[in-house]
């Protein structure tokens, strides 16, 4: 059995799905980001001026890494959650389960879809931002690494959501009520230094804060939180999520009677 061929096929099928429904997967982040840049960057951001703690950095420049991360996180998550639940709903998961493909290959095939969409949408956001601001990347390798790790982590979390989901509502509950508030309160639009002390402490229990700041460090060369915490946090969550998802798929939770 050629497991790599099977993995390649499932990965390609997932990427093909993203491209087939590009109007749902690629276009919306471009429009949303353009609106963010226009309203919060060009209009309101002009009145804010330089960001405190980031010497010589305008508000719109501060916002770019946050908006890229926002898109990578939400799209990686949504892609795998909906693709996996969609195959369960259409019963096409049976095509995969009856085949000799091992559990790790099934997982990785779906993850490749999430990573691909994370990168694609991240690129779209970068291109959109170029219409509003000049971007300079401080550490290109670290920037790519942080996008890769983040998209892997949120693809895995999306997969866990897809495994447990029994209806379309279940696929949207976590992104709407958990992920979106955490992302918006995770320092995308503001520096936590401007918050009162007690709110700064509360913000520090939000894992997204560390992920966004790690990426901001990679892109801009400075951040308000040690980037090492971010990379350790992402790695730890990724390992735990991978092992959990692997165990669930191997056991057939949510996919076998």
């Amino acid at each position, binding site marked *: *059995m*050629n*497991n790599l*061929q*099977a993995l*390649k*096929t*499932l990965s*390609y*099928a997932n990427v*093909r799905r993203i491209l*087939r429904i590009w109007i749902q997967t690629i276009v919306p982040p471009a429009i949303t980001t353009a609106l963010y840049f226009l309203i919060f960057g060009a209009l309101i951001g002009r009145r804010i001026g330089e960001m405190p703690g980031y010497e010589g950095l305008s508000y719109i420049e501060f916002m770019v890494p946050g908006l890229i991360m926002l898109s990578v996180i939400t799209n990686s998550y949504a892609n795998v959650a909906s693709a996996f639940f969609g*195959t369960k709903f*259409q*019963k*096409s*998961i*049976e*095509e*995969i*389960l*009856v*085949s*000799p*493909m*091992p559990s790790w290959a099934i997982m990785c095939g779906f993850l490749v879809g999430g990573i691909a969409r994370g990168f694609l949408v991240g690129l779209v956001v970068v291109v959109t931002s170029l219409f509003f601001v000049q971007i300079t990347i401080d550490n290109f390798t670290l920037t790519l690494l942080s996008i890769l790790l983040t998209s892997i982590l949120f693809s895995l979390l999306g997969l866990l959501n897809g495994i447990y989901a029994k209806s379309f509502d279940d696929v949207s509950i976590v992104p709407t009520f958990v992920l979106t508030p955490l992302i918006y309160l995770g320092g995308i639009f503001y520096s936590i230094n401007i918050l009162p002390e007690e709110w700064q402490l509360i913000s520090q229990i939000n894992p997204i804060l560390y992920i966004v700041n790690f990426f901001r460090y990679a892109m801009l060369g400075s951040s308000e939180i040690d980037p090492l915490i971010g990379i350790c946090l992402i790695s730890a969550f990724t390992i735990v999520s991978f092992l959990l998802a692997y165990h669930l798929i191997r056991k*057939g939770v949510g996919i*076998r*009677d």
Partner: protein
Amino acid sequence: MYALEIKDLKKTYSNKVEALKGIDLNVSKGDFFALLGPNGAGKSTVIGIISSLVNKSSGHVKVCGIDIDENFSLAKSKLGVVNQEFNFSQFEKVIDIIVTQAGYYGVDYKTAVERAEKYLKKLGLWDKRNDQARMLSGGQKRRIMIIKAMIHEPELLILDEPTAGVDIELRRSLWDFLLEINQQGTTIILTTHYLEEAENLCRNIAIIDGGDIIENTSMNSLLKQIDDQVFIVETEKVVPKDFSLPGYPVQDISENKFSVILKKNKNLNDLFKAQELEDLNVKNIRNQTNRLEELFVKLTSKNE
């Protein structure tokens, strides 16, 4: 050598429904085997366990000699399954569905495309290869299911009601296709509600009911169990109301028609020779019902 060996297979679902109560079943290599049973008898559970869609509670299953508990991946590579329900993305193109399925079995792209062409042409879907699956008719989708199951050229093919809802012409062309691949060496296990289908195609048969195998024999021996057969006789001359045939009970007499019961120990040739029939100028004699159907109803109702 068996293509499928099942020993003491049990399945109880999470809702406490006991779908299989410990069945034993062997299917020889090269066989064309019917697995029959009423709705909810446990047929799909058996198929689900063999193909890994359902987790068994206990028991042993071997596919082509490979224990699924020891090397399920290798066992699955020998197996093709046509499920009852369409289980492919309706938004994908036909050719993509088939080539993707081949890829899941590790078949390289070039070989997958060649095989897809072979089977699409064989089952009359080549012209539809670039259409989205949702645009196809039920019969065409059914054929996609069969091609998907055949694309990695398995040694054992299991078909769960493959001809449900397809027209007679297509059903017969699918029968020809299945007979052809069986002659080429593929072992076939078929579940169907069309008992005529099982009678025409299969050499051996098992009947499952209430989670137990209640009959497991050759088709010929099963059909020999039939006690009575009813023949309808149509005549040119009017049948007298008190018409009788010595040794053959007669019933349902109408103007130019009556039914005659042929007991197990009686011979159809002797019936044809009866002078009483000749006097009525017989136009036509036909079997009233499908023989296997009668027996099936009898066996499964015994179990209720």
